[in-house]
């Protein structure tokens, strides 16, 4: 028995969410008195792979073949399941990223494993192997018990910290066979804004609503986000009106996020909006209406006109940073 973690690379690098998944997997391995192995797919330098040792990975299987340079859901899932079999791993951990959401269910079916998607805490084993996960778009949590021998867990970003746990690590090339039919999806193009913090991973998010009146007023939102190293987000009507891209829309029907700090500007706090953001650790609301429902779930609030308040916050932040 062992624990396997899939470490998703982006342009040959691991992001923080990967180290979170590794730290989480290591904690599970420790609880089960077993080792942690990682599997990496794509072209990643040994120096980057060795970084995984810092967080408790004792071995990494590196799959670096031409066929698998780009993400193909079906083939990657097959490779990860093969790695689990090879390592005799009964628990597979991965990050609940966009790609992770596509992989985890396929791996689970291949291993006939119960799946937890959106885990936020370590498993408990009293009365069955159970994991707390988000449910009802962040309005609740579900403690889900897995009844199968094998288990797959997709960990939410920002739910479990990165924990250093240095061990010595070995890198091993792994070249499982891949069926041609597993490679029938072809990646044509990847468009990624590299200069921006991505929303699901962000520790701080600055978000704007209809109170900002129009897309031309997002300059101050972006400036505030830049100063904080934050990602930008918006409410649904804002993306529906094409003021901002759909990928920024948070809430029940958008992305669910749980940053350390969420700053909501000119957003009323409708139940569907709150669903996706209420698990943020600290919430700041700026709204001119003292009765806005958002204040009821906020930690800090400023009642005032965003067009006056936000520039002052920016100024104060610059002063603080100086």
């Amino acid at each position: 028995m062992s624990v396997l973690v899939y470490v998703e690379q982006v342009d040959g690098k691991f992001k923080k969410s990967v180290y979170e998944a590794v730290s989480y997997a290591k904690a599970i391995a420790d609880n089960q008195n077993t080792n942690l192995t990682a599997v990496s797919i794509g072209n990643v330098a040994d120096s980057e792979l060795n970084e995984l040792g810092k967080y408790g990975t004792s071995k990494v299987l590196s799959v670096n073949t031409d066929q698998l340079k780009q993400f193909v859901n079906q083939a990657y899932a097959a490779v990860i399941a093969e790695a689990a079999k090879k390592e005799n791993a009964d628990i597979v951990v991965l990050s609940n990223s966009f790609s992770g959401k596509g992989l985890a269910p396929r791996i689970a079916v291949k291993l006939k494993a119960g799946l937890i998607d959106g885990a936020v805490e370590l498993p408990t084993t009293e009365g069955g192997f159970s994991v707390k996960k988000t449910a009802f778009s962040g309005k609740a949590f579900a403690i889900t018990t897995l009844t199968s021998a094998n288990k797959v867990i997709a960990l939410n970003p920002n739910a479990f910290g990165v924990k250093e746990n240095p061990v010595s690590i070995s890198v091993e090339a792994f070249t499982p066979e891949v069926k041609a039919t597993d490679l029938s999806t072809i990646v044509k193009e990847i468009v990624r804004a590299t200069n921006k913090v991505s929303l699901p991973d962000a520790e701080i998010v600055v978000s704007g609503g209809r109170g900002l009146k129009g897309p031309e007023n997002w300059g101050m939102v972006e400036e505030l986000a830049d100063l904080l190293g934050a990602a930008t987000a918006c409410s649904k009507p804002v993306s529906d009106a094409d003021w901002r891209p759909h990928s920024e829309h948070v809430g029940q029907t958008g992305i669910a996020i749980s940053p350390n700090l969420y700053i909501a500007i000119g957003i009323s706090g409708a139940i569907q909006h709150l669903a996706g953001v209420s698990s943020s650790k600290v919430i700041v609301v700026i709204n001119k209406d003292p009765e806005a429902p958002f204040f009821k779930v906020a930690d800090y609030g400023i009642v005032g006109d965003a067009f006056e308040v936000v520039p002052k916050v920016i100024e104060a932040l610059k002063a603080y940073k100086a």
Partner: protein
Amino acid sequence: MKILVCISNVPDTTTKITFTSDNTQFNTAGVQYIVNPYDEIALSRAIELCEGGKGTVTVINVGESSTEPTIRKALAIGADDAVRVNAVPRDAYFVAYQIAQYAKANDYDMILCGRESIDYNGSQVAAMIGEFLDIPSISIIKKLDMDGNTATIEREIEGGKEVVTVTGKFVASCAEGTAEPKIPNMRGIMSARTKPLQVIEAEQIDELSKVSKFETPAPRGSVKLIPADNAGELINLLHTEAKVI
């Protein structure tokens, strides 16, 4: 082109989520059920792709008879026919297996799901169907175009998008952007009553997971209001008290 759209029956988005029986059961009292909003998007795209006689759209739900109003709503939006697998949807593995069995027996070209159901939020069913059928699955898509037998799909990735093509059968889970949700018109509502809704029995398969308890998030303390002319105090509190900057 035959398209199968998977529909889940979920509590309306305004539902206040509470639990009963020592937090082991979702409290359904007074809850209104709707077509999962993402499934509406999937269905709307399927209908667009079949417009002008280019194909047919079947909706499928794994659920008890209480889900039929939701299935009728999907028919009113414009699906041609519907199937209900008569069973409690025990977990995603169980649900995906049922749908995969039906899809295999009836030879669908494309299966569309929503990106996730807004109740249990698994994002599991679509890719599981793909695995059961051994066909490609593309998760969290925001654009889907067909050219003959080849689909061009945009899927969401952190901070951007990836464009992929796939030829032949596939499963995809749809997010916003894939289509504007269609609203049923009077004619749709009338015809939905008489469109075929077939009920089939579930196949035996054990579930692999079950919810043993629910929790609701701890309530926050009351908000600390900061005067509008004192932004410096906000920054100060975020640094010294909340320790987030």
